[in-house]
């Protein structure tokens, strides 16, 4: 996927000026936050489960090589095939080989961020294989030629009116008098169109929420049931998952499942949790004849053992973006790559390079709400700060910022100099205010005064006034 993160500021401005998008973004705030709190409050063990889940992931990550080996062995025992892909390119090639071997013209897809990360749809189309997204949200944005703007609600940036217009444009069979004014009608239409696709597909591709080392299973968690139809109807099922998805046992999966849906949508459990192990068994009347797993690294191994390792605990629930004031303001596309919001601000520099995504870890107020709601206790603001440190060390931030900061730091490091400078600065500032109580414009403070007034400072600092007060007190005592 083309990265537009370097243009984050322009993207954000466009997003802020887009009335349709702003209307749609209201649903992020209304649709997730209260539901999550309700689900969490109904489970007194929620915080204990967070600690438990963190420990599971930390243990797994520090033994990742061994769990991956064990996982592969168990997949093979169950009759499946494991493919290892170091890069997005490798993963795409494996998918294409499997499609070619299956003679596939159409592939259905369950919702998967990892296939977005490797840009699978564009690639398959170029190679003459037609990918069909089956999750309702993913289907909508595929019709629109867009990418997901949210990791669990891919079309959250789209309004109902826009969906209706998209369906009318793309579905030739729709008669103009067909009433599509209710969301139910739109869902029914998508269901009907996609039913046919499941049966025509030769290959079904899904992601995975977990890989279980104990049993060689892949696990998907969905609400619509499209992921299941995608994997049981075509002859070949391909799972694409990144290496950090592995957990040791089914019990570990169960611990994390208790956090996942609650944090994501406020459900106790998603509707369908499906644990798949290998292809159809000899006496099975249904299910895929081939079962492939593509294990993707694509930069994750380079996060291990660094200050960014904790990010690999992420279970992609989306709670961080659901609670992020910056995400609420600009939506997911402004971030310019696959993963938006706070988790994207940490992950994108790791996977796509800090030179291209420097804005993302900077575009945060460090309000800490993301960390507070993260079910896996990922210290997102701390890791964004680590990226800022790496940028600073490499001299990647703008020169004006660096010089300004160094000049300020020179004073802040030297208290006497600082006292002198501040006591001189205030009278100078009062010159600009001309006794007004606040500024509407101040040179060098345009970033502030463009949108808000700045209170005029007093003519003397607190420190000056305090010293006088103390001196008076001493005088009085003398």
């Amino acid at each position, binding site marked *: 996927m083309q990265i537009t993160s370097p243009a984050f500021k322009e993207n954000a401005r466009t997003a802020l000026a887009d009335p349709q998008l702003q209307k749609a973004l209201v649903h992020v705030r209304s649709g997730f936050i209260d539901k999550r709190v309700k689900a969490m409050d109904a489970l007194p063990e929620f915080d204990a489960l967070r600690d*438990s889940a963190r420990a599971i992931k930390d243990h797994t990550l520090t033994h990742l090589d061994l769990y991956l080996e064990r996982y592969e062995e168990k997949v093979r025992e169950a009759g499946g095939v494991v493919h290892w892909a170091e890069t997005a390119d490798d993963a795409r090639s494996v998918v294409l080989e499997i499609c070619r071997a299956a003679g596939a013209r159409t592939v259905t897809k369950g919702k998967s961020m990892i296939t977005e990360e490797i840009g699978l749809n564009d690639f398959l189309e170029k190679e003459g294989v037609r990918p069909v997204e089956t999750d309702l949200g993913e289907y909508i944005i595929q019709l629109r030629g867009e990418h997901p703007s949210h990791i669990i609600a891919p079309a959250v940036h789209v309004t109902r009116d826009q969906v209706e217009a998209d369906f009318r444009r793309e579905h030739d069979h729709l008669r103009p008098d067909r009433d599509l004014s209710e*969301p*139910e009608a739109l869902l029914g239409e998508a269901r009907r169109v996609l039913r046919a696709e499941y049966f025509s597909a030769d290959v079904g591709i899904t992601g995975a929420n977990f890989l279980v080392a104990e049993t060689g*299973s892949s696990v998907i968690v969905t609400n619509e049931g499209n992921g*299941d139809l995608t994997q*049981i109807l075509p002859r070949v099922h391909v799972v694409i998952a990144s290496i950090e998805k592995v957990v040791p046992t089914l019990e570990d999966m*169960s611990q994390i499942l208790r956090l996942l849906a609650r944090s994501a949508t406020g459900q*106790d459990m998603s*509707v369908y949790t499906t644990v798949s192990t290998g292809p159809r068994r000899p006496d099975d009347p249904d299910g895929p004849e081939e079962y492939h797993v593509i294990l993707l690294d694509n930069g994750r191994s380079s996060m291990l053992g660094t200050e960014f390792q904790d990010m690999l605990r992420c279970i992609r629930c989306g709670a961080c973006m659901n609670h992020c004031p910056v995400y609420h303001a600009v939506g997911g596309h402004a971030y310019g790559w696959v993963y938006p919001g706070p988790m994207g601000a940490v992950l994108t520099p790791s996977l796509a390079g800090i030179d291209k995504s420097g804005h993302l870890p900077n575009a945060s107020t460090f309000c800490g709400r993301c960390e507070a709601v993260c079910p896996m206790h990922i210290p997102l603001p701390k890791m964004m700060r680590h990226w800022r440190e790496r940028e600073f060390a490499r001299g990647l931030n703008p020169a004006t910022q660096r010089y300004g900061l160094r000049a300020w730091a020179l004073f802040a490091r030297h208290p006497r100099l600082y006292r002198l400078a501040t006591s001189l600065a205030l009278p100078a500032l009062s010159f600009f205010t001309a006794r007004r109580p606040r500024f509407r414009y101040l040179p060098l403070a345009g970033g502030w005064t463009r949108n808000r007034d700045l209170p005029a400072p007093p003519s003397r600092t607190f420190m000056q006034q305090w010293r006088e007060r103390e001196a008076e007190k001493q005088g009085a005592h003398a």
Partner: protein
Amino acid sequence: MSGREGIIGKVRTALGAKAGDAARTRAVHERLLAAPQGVIPARGQLPHAKQVRLFCMMAEKVSASVQRVKKPDSVPRAVAAYLRAKNLPSAVRMGSDERLAAMPWHTMKSLEVKTGAADPEDEVGVSHALAGIAETGTVALYSGPRNPTTVNFLPEHHIVVVDAKDIAGDMETVLASLRQTFGKGKMPRTLNLITGPSRSADIEQTLLVGAHGPRALHLIVVDGG
């Protein structure tokens, strides 16, 4: 195989680990063997009768409909009544599950019972669950000729029969019984944990029941199973 060695090698280097490190191997082996349960919420840890009630309540909370019957013989009548109430054709699809097969379907004269995997024309599927999970109102089903997976997803109405004695407090109990059945480290091809009928909130976060899977999930809990 180069991808494999490349990834495993990078992971080991990043972790500062050596291949064949006995302590690490043992740690992993023991973890897999012990399969510790972690935190089990108190919600489902109840006397069995209360677990059954909690199961029914939680399932209804997620928009499933629940009906309790006294004995397996009552199930066909309950199914027929459901079909009539919903104005559905008098036909159901099911697998070869012995518990279902032993029920007196022939007494429902006009009811057609088709066995085998589901096809797109089936409007109603009937399955027998491996278990119910009280904590979340979830039913657990696994693939095979007895209860084909397509029956869970293709029909618009999915009727699941659950024996009350198979209702457990938590998922961990169900996972343990699966291990008993299939052996440690082994699984059926597909384990479906189903919590309510299919749904979507992808259009303006409006919750709609009935997406790609069944629009309705009807649970028949058999008390004297």
